[in-house]
């Protein structure tokens, strides 16, 4: 067993990231999006069943503990995606079989007892399909939990270590599910995150620019896991991925234009207002980017003061508001993307897997269900034919799907 190789015959591990209407910011305006169903469990049940038809290892829900805002109130130009993820996966446990059910939940704003009880219960109810993405939550959460300011990064991670140890001790004291304990998932690539990931993480969500970057990260993390007495295969690396499926270049171009059109100017203004905590709503998108206006009085907008350097670096000479926004839109998620027909999408995924840069992907669809259905119906059969993806589930636990050993 070595730290850097992908063994021939290794299967892809696929998670599907459950956002309301899809991974594209304009997906809520897509003609196929039924807005009155976005908060109904039926929508999520149908989506999870579609992902299970594609033999995904798991569906995954993110978590936020505050509304998205721009000056003066909520960010009304984007779809909210903030329902309690544990209520969602508990409900899905009753409506699905086989597919794993993972959710983020905060180590900062829940006690070990709450975390242990909830995940153990869902693990029992689902027959061993639960996964917990351990998150420390964003800065905006603090104001809803009244304990002064949101704790700083190092404090949050030290709290997370203590919380996860306590949760695991509680799990060890209780009834066991068929997978013994929920799968521990983590995202985060800082040094703190790496230490945490190599100690506890079993599936790691990550963002890489290229295969070399992915391979370096994966090799490093597998080595760190080995140094801590774990098998390198006990840690699966899943970069974010959103495919752009179109069989011809004309089809891809049309689709790009269609999705670009879904983002209206007021949405761009709203999202930039949120990002800079600055009111862009009356600005013309074709005017030069108003960097001086933003830097002026930045100290009065404490939420973003520390980001000054990053902002200044991101904005290039000659940028209009529109060109800046377009550049940010393409990189803000940090996800890998690939465009082309089913064979080309499969080529991309295969190259990453067999290049030792990942163990699979945590995938978003531009729109749910249209683009997920396209992936399941067109790309999944290609992956299966190449022997890269399971044709059916061989077990019924998330731990089994991911090829993970029982926790120590």
């Amino acid at each position, binding site marked *: 067993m070595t730290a850097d190789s992908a063994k021939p015959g290794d299967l892809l591990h696929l998670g599907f990231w459950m956002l309301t209407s899809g991974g594209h910011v304009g997906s809520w305006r897509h003609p196929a999006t039924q807005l009155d169903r976005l908060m109904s469990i039926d929508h999520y049940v149908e989506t999870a069943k579609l992902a299970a038809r594609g033999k995904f290892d798991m569906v995954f829900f993110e978590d936020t503990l505050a509304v998205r805002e721009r000056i003066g109130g909520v960010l009304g130009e984007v779809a909210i995606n903030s329902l309690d993820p544990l209520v969602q996966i508990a409900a899905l446990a009753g409506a699905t079989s086989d597919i794993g059910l993972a959710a983020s939940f905060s180590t900062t704003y829940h006690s070990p007892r709450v975390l242990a009880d909830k995940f153990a219960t*869902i693990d029992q109810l689902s027959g061993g399909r639960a996964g917990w993405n351990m998150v420390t939550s964003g800065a905006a959460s603090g104001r809803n939990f009244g304990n002064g300011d949101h704790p700083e990064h190092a404090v949050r991670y030290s709290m997370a270590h203590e919380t996860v140890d306590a949760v695991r001790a509680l799990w060890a004291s209780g009834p066991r599910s068929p997978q013994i304990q929920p799968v521990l998932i983590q995202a985060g690539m800082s040094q703190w995150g790496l230490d945490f990931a190599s100690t506890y993480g079993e599936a790691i969500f990550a963002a890489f620019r290229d295969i070399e970057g992915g391979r370096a990260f994966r090799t490093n993390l597998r080595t760190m896991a080995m140094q801590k007495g774990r098998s390198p295969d006990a840690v699966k690396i899943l970069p974010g991925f959103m495919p752009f499926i179109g069989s011809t270049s004309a089809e891809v171009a049309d689709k790009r234009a269609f999705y670009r059109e879904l983002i209206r100017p007021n949405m761009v203004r709203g999202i930039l207002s949120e990002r800079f905590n600055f009111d862009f709503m009356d600005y013309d998108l074709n005017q030069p980017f108003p960097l001086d206006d933003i830097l002026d009085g930045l100290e009065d907008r404490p939420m973003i003061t520390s980001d000054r350097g990053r902002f200044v670096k991101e904005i290039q000479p000659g940028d209009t508001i529109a060109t800046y926004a377009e550049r940010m839109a393409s990189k803000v998620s940090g996800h890998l993307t690939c465009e082309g027909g089913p064979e080309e999408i499969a080529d991309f995924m295969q190259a990453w897997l067999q290049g030792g840069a990942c163990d699979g992907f945590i995938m978003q669809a531009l729109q749910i269900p249209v683009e997920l259905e396209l992936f399941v119906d067109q790309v999944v059969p290609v992956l299966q034919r190449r022997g890269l993806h399971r044709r059916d589930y061989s077990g019924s636990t998330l731990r089994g799907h991911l090829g993970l050993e029982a926790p120590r």
Partner: protein
Amino acid sequence: MILGLRLDGLGDGAVLAEQAALDFVLLGDPTNGVEGPVGADPLSVAAFLMTTTQRIGLVAAISDDWAPFNVARALASFDLLSGGRCGWMPLTIGDAARSAEHLDVVLKLFDSWEDAALTYDKAAAVFADRTKVHRIRHSGAFFTVDGPLNAPRPPQGWPVLIQPLAAAGEFADIVLAGIDDLDQMSREHVPTAVRLAEVPFDLGADTAERGAALAERMSIAYLEGRCDGFLLAPANAGADIPLLVDQVIPKLRARGLAASGYGDGDFRTRLGLARPVNQFDGVVGP
């Protein structure tokens, strides 16, 4: 009469309870704030039952040592996802003043989005009307919570609130008392809430006799107007729930006292309760 059923553990018995057209099941006794091994989380069990049943009301006990923002968000999510089937019973860990403030914050958070806040306007690219979403700016002795909630207002306005008589405040939708304490739950004492008598039962032996006695006892208390219904608490869920459905519910139906199906509307509507007015209606700005 309104009929509820206490369930424990992982909620076995809920499907039978729905076949018998009971109004709700109550998942009780979270272990939050308690020492000891991991236990079943009532809210997660209730959420699981959202998809294994279709109509029955789903009530979870929730300890108030879970932050009010978390409680409000979980319940609003549950009510939205289930289309208005959610109820809750707060359990007090700390003192009564803290518990009252906790409830106050949760209700404010439910109201932080006005009912009309979601505009869903694809043409204008406006998902939500920000003038109808409000910070609650709560600052009290025990909690400081800014809000708004990151979920819209639940379809029932507020999920149905169940409280024991001793702890019940002005917002209780359902009030519970032991069947021997119904004198304290007269209409003078409890003017608007649904009054339920909690009845422990055990049909494991002498089933026919005990079943008939239980139906008789419930009928009398109900017909005398001493309560509006019952929360039935089985001694042994596995044995007692099928016997309840077989032996007791048909007798109540024969007397015209128990429903044989679900009427229209959400859980709150079926209980005959009004939808709460939003305390932030008409407030201008965030």
